[in-house]
């Protein structure tokens, strides 16, 4: 049955309505606030009963695809199952009620969890010190590049303002470099998906602050010559930054610290299964080698004997500073903590292994079914890239069309058109929490869509047909901006 669209909440409003049981009683005294500072007209907020609000948002939720309801193989996003236990324990009432500025005497419980999380992240990444403050991968990247700059400045080297990124890098990498006042130097990857060592040797200089890499790369393959890459960059006086977006592929199998990285960020909302929440909150915890430790963003948890406490700006004079008002996304950190305790050391390794197994299984079955892998001679990491450029050329059916048709079959599309290097690509990441049947069904569906593309291309080009909306006019959205509802009267 076709899902029904849901009105806007404002369209349910009736003057005077509200969840009145939730309203405090009217104040006994008028506010002691000068008239000139008072609000004259009430804000445009809904006036609906509690039941109307509950129905509205429940129905809205039912218009979403989610991990809880659909296979969601979004490459580089690591859409693995979000264990309910993580949410339940992070939301224990005492954890929820604690004010960020509450004293350490009333925080030993949460601080113990955060400290142990720091320690476990150090262990799985092979880094010397960890800070949990950055609130997303991009903020982790910012911290990382800022630390690299601070490190060079502290050495008296003002010239190092260039950040090298592979051309296939995620957009946040060059955007971060710019935010840190650096310039970006892109280098190509070769036909097999590895960074070109030749290009790298020409790119490094006395202006190199560092290089930002993901490993396995955004092309879904392991950077096989990472040790040489590290040697070249270090040899030129630069540092290596690891973008942890693809850590799920190597969790428990390889550690970024062992590969030679000086600073990393981990996406807790990917590898450590904290919820994606419709676009966050995430967490971009950062780890560093010993020489960068003084520059870590504050606050950081430390342990003295059996007491936990916060380190702040006063304790870390060389820190790049704080990036948030308080300690970052603490509730997210607690969820990651629970997840890591549920995995344990054995579970970490199994994650890396089965994420990789599932991706390689899909790679084998999809290529067997006639699809073109972008890097057919390589092992998949935890994700694989299929290119539909042949279908685009021969059938005029694109990756976008396949993606939209997948929705009709109850599967969220993989990542499309990223990495930019591979034309008409689908970046597919099954994750380790999917069963073999789900993977087989995905292959079946892809085969079916291929057949439709050959026999009834319009059906695919016009997809999706069974969602609450058909394909949306993006051009109109940007040209005729409608960003807020306005009452008609």
């Amino acid at each position, binding site marked *: 049955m076709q899902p029904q669209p849901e009105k806007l909440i404002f369209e349910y409003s009736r003057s005077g309505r509200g969840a009145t049981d939730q309203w405090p009683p009217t104040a006994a005294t008028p506010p002691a606030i000068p008239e000139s500072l008072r609000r004259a007209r009430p804000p445009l907020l*809904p006036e609906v009963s509690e039941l109307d609000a509950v129905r509205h*948002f429940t129905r809205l939720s039912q218009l979403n695809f989610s991990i809880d309801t659909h296979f969601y193989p979004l490459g580089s996003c690591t859409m693995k199952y979000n264990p309910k236990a993580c949410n339940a324990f992070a939301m224990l009432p005492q954890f929820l009620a604690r004010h960020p500025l509450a004293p350490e005497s009333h925080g030993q419980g949460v601080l113990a969890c955060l400290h142990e999380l720091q320690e476990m992240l150090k262990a799985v990444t092979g880094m010397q010190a960890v800070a949990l403050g950055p609130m997303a991968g991009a903020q982790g990247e910012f911290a990382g590049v800022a630390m690299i700059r601070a490190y060079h400045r502290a050495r008296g080297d003002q010239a190092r303002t260039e950040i090298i990124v592979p051309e296939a890098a995620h957009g946040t990498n060059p955007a971060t470099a710019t*935010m840190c006042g650096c310039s970006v130097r892109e280098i190509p990857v070769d036909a097999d998906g590895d960074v070109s060592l030749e290009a790298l040797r020409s790119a490094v200089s006395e202006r190199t602050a560092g290089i930002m890499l993901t490993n396995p790369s955004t092309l879904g393959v392991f950077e096989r010559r990472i040790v040489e890459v590290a040697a070249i960059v270090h040899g030129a006086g630069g540092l290596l930054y690891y973008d942890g977006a693809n850590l799920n592929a190597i969790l428990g199998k390889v550690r970024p610290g062992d590969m030679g990285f000086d600073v990393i960020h981990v996406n807790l909302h990917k590898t450590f299964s904290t919820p994606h929440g419709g*676009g966050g909150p995430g967490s971009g915890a950062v780890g560093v080698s010993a020489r960068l430790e003084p520059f870590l963003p504050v606050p950081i948890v430390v342990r003295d004997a059996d007491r936990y406490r916060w380190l702040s*700006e006063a304790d870390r004079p060389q820190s790049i500073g704080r990036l948030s008002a308080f300690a970052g996304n603490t509730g997210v950190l607690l969820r990651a903590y629970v997840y890591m305790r549920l995995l344990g*050391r*054995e579970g970490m390794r199994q994650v890396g292994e089965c994420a990789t*197994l599932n991706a390689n299984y899909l790679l084998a079955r999809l290529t067997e079914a006639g699809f073109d892998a972008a890097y057919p001679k390589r092992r998949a990491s935890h994700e694989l890239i299929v290119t539909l450029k042949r279908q685009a050329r021969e059938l005029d059916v694109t990756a976008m069309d396949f993606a939209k048709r997948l929705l009709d079959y109850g599967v969220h599309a993989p990542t499309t058109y990223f990495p930019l290097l591979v034309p008409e690509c689908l970046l597919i990441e099954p994750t380790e929490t999917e069963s073999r049947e789900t993977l087989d069904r995905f292959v079946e569906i892809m085969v079916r869509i291929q057949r439709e593309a050959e026999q009834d291309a319009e059906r695919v080009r016009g997809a999706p047909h069974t969602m609450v909306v058909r394909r949306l006019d993006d051009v109109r959205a*940007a040209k005729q901006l409608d960003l807020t509802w306005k009452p008609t009267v």
Partner: protein
Amino acid sequence: MAFIPHTAADIEEMLAAIGVASIEQLFEEIPPALRTRNLPAVPSALNEMQIGRLMMQRALADGQPLSFLGAGAYEHHIPAAVWAITTRGEFYSAYTPYQAEASQGTLQTIYEFQTMIASLTGMQAANASLYDGASAFAEAVLMAVRLNRKSESLRVLVPRTVHPHYRLAARSITANQEIRLEELDYARESGRTSREALERYAGEDIAALAIQQPNFFGVLEDVDALSTWAQSRSIPIIAIVNPVSLALLKPPGEWGGGADIVVGEGQPLGVPLSSGGPYFGFLATRMQHVRQMPGRVVGRTLDLAGRPGFTLTLQAREQHIRRGRATSNICTNQGLLVTAATIYMSLMGPQGLERVASASHERARELIAAITQVPGVRAAFTSPFFHEAVVRLDRPVAPLLAALAERDILGGLDLTGSYPELGNALLTCATETKTSADIERFASELRAVLSSAT
């Protein structure tokens, strides 16, 4: 284990389909020297029962003291419906709405949120959130500098009455782009930004002026005078506001000729305190500035059948399109918290939010009246305040707070570190969650502690 469904038989069959003998073969491209053998420093797995027990112990260890802390994070009642719906799997485990047709729930929620925030702040457009109020302020500084093409100075005036952590975070985030944040002092008696301090910049090239309302002390600034000063010099205004207070207070869109960029901390709108996060920052602006806004924004459009639908729009500003020339590097934001806030605002409506604001203001007045009855405690400033205020004590604050904490009361924030010129000063807050009995208890414990010490 690890939520992996595979049995040994599954794995065997899958390996056969791939054409390898073992999982290890799938890692053959990785240099053997790099492979981790095991992770001794990571503890062995716990099951859900075991970790549940540990978390319960730890939560209980933190207790649930009676708190009068504010300073940028506020305790308000959160209706049970808010998180019951927000933690539904369809919201909780959904991704960023890149495939719009499969994400209309999230997208419509954000559109409704943008509408509510724009109206609350008196502005014309809002984004889909930033990480928190402090980083939102930093982004607003960067945005103001981008917008103000006339200014060459990169100097932004930031009153000392702006939250100290917001000033620190903004410095960390903007330092590498050579922006200079210059502090404006406040008048000691009123607790408001000093007009004199501002006048010293009268002829100078200033890129932007920030104004926090209520300010960090809880004091209400003379926003019209400050705004007019800036606007008459074509200096863009960055307003930093408390969203609940906006149910009572004139929104920044109506300060003087109107602020240019409005940011703030959204936590008071249905988000639990949770030791500091996750919260969300909001950012609202004038329609003509939307292309310089950082972060995601949702727009309403039509589908192929001419029906309305929602999609992410103006993506050319963002990192995945503009890369090195993006307005910000932000990608993941705070979607789940935006969902909670939208539900909260829908439940409360304009009247409910006004009740929360008024009740909080009233409780805070009651609180200050009660504790300034205690010998040795007096109000620091003469100005009207919203729901928190500064009191001065006749002795150091830290030991006093420690003694109160032992009695399971968190009395407020010691300002000695960030505002030493105030002497022994305490920032204390009350919201609608505090009863008269709570306030009486605080006052009497305070009296007991102050009279027992030397």
